[in-house]
């Protein structure tokens, strides 16, 4: 079922090398990030997965349902996981300046610099191989006290990393709530800078047994297009529908 998402977004025909994808979630959890992770794993791309709120076990469990084994890829060094939860726990015990989350105990003018260096180091070790830099729930940084300007700066640095290496792609997910102005400001600005923007929302009328929500797809590369889909989440993937065709 991950294939239906890739086909609906035309990512089987459009090369994402050197491009960026932004997923804006108005509801909890992004099933589309996992579909894109599955595609990257199946294509044999190297993956740097940065997560601030989930453990590696979570991604492994979801990946298993979608047909790929994260632990296996970790052991082969095809995937590198930079996990916030473990690093946050360690950062309070060992206040190490090489910890990617040193900004929590060390007030820095550039809080995310160490995290960026960690990512750069992993990518440089891979040389010219195609890779995907995946950052899940970038909005968690606001909860950790990082300012909007630093988050935007971090995105720009990651974006330039991916563009320098013509075979890299950047996939970022951000949760947005209507009351959080900082979040909305950041996600709107990043929407201007991303080649593909997926905006995922629940249904306006509430819950439905036939549908989980709606997805708006915006391509910022010429010719710019906007499409809307409805989708339904299952245990083993997502089904996409044109609006109004879910019950057909």
């Amino acid at each position, binding site marked *: 079922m991950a294939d239906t998402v890739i086909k609906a977004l035309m990512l089987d025909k459009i090369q994402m090398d*050197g*491009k*960026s994808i932004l997923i804006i979630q108005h509801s909890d959890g992004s099933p589309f990030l996992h579909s894109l992770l599955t595609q990257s794993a199946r294509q044999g791309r190297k993956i740097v997965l940065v997560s601030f709120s989930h453990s590696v076990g979570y991604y492994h469990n979801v990946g298993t349902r979608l047909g790929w084994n994260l632990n296996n890829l970790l052991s082969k060094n095809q995937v590198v996981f930079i996990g916030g939860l473990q690093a946050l726990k360690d950062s309070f015990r060992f206040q190490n300046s090489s910890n990617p989350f040193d900004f929590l105990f060390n007030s820095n*003018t*550039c809080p995310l610099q160490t995290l960026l260096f960690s990512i750069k180091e992993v990518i440089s070790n891979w040389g010219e191989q195609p890779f995907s830099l995946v950052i899940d729930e970038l909005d968690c940084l606001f909860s950790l006290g990082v*300012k*909007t*300007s*630093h988050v*935007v*700066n971090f*995105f*720009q*640095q990651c*974006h*330039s990393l991916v*563009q320098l290496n013509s075979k890299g792609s950047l996939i970022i997910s951000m949760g947005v709530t209507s009351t959080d102005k900082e979040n909305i*400001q950041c996600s*709107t*600005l990043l*929407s*201007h*800078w*991303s*080649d593909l*923007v997926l905006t995922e929302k629940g249904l306006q009328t509430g819950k439905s047994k036939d549908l989980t929500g709606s997805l708006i797809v*915006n391509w*910022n*590369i*010429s010719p*710019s297009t906007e499409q809307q889909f409805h989708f339904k989440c299952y245990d083993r993937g997502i089904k996409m529908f044109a609006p109004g065709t879910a019950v057909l």
Partner: protein
Amino acid sequence: MILKDILSQPPVSTLIQDSCSLKGRPLFLSLICHYSENGYSIRYFKYDSPLSSEASEMEQLKLSWKTCIVDGNEDMVSVENSWISEIKNGNVLIAIDSLSPLLLNWTVGEVASALKNLQKTTTASVIALVHGDVHDKHNLQTLNYIFPCHLTVRRAQGCNICSGIWRKTSGKITDSEEHYSITDKWELKDVKEFIETQSAVVTDSLPKSAVPKSTFKLGLNAREEKARSQVVLPYIRKQNESSSETSKGKIIYEVEAPDWDDEDPDDDLEI
């Protein structure tokens, strides 16, 4: 028509405001391309993170550029100095793409002050892009005071629309709404005044028939209407019999025979 006027004159400091629904960058680049072809030297400052397609666009325009990632460690003065240092002789146009990252790192006052200093100390004009949906109205309003010409792009009725306000040096303020399109060679074409056609206003009037639309036959044909009009209602007949004068709100009460029960209600009690 502001778009046509600014193309026919030397460059004026212009702010282009866009949103996610319609990007202002094509208009921004077409204006730069036009001034470049007319002999102006362009100094392009790229503060936005570029899309993958922008590298080929800039090659096509033969503009040299370098992405500047704004860092909070710098101060606005160093950014201002980087603009001024590029102005070595006359006929220079500073192109800033865009002001949004600067507004995140510094206050609108600092950014506006730097732009004002640039315009005062040099003869260069500035064309800047700003993403209107990222910033609040107060910040955008402040920037409007710095730029004499303000263009807002939006999408309406399937066309690209540019709403412009131009405060000329003589004090006259002109405003217009134009639709435009941009060719593959970054030329502005089809610039025409835009007149928004409003949908036909339906006057609020009572429907001729108050019968709701239904699959059931709720209405009456002419014969049934006539028969209904000939029905005399019983209370109307009674009213006419009781008084010859037209009564207004009179209650007619007929005393009925009293309904007294002679039986003792407590008769069944064995007291």
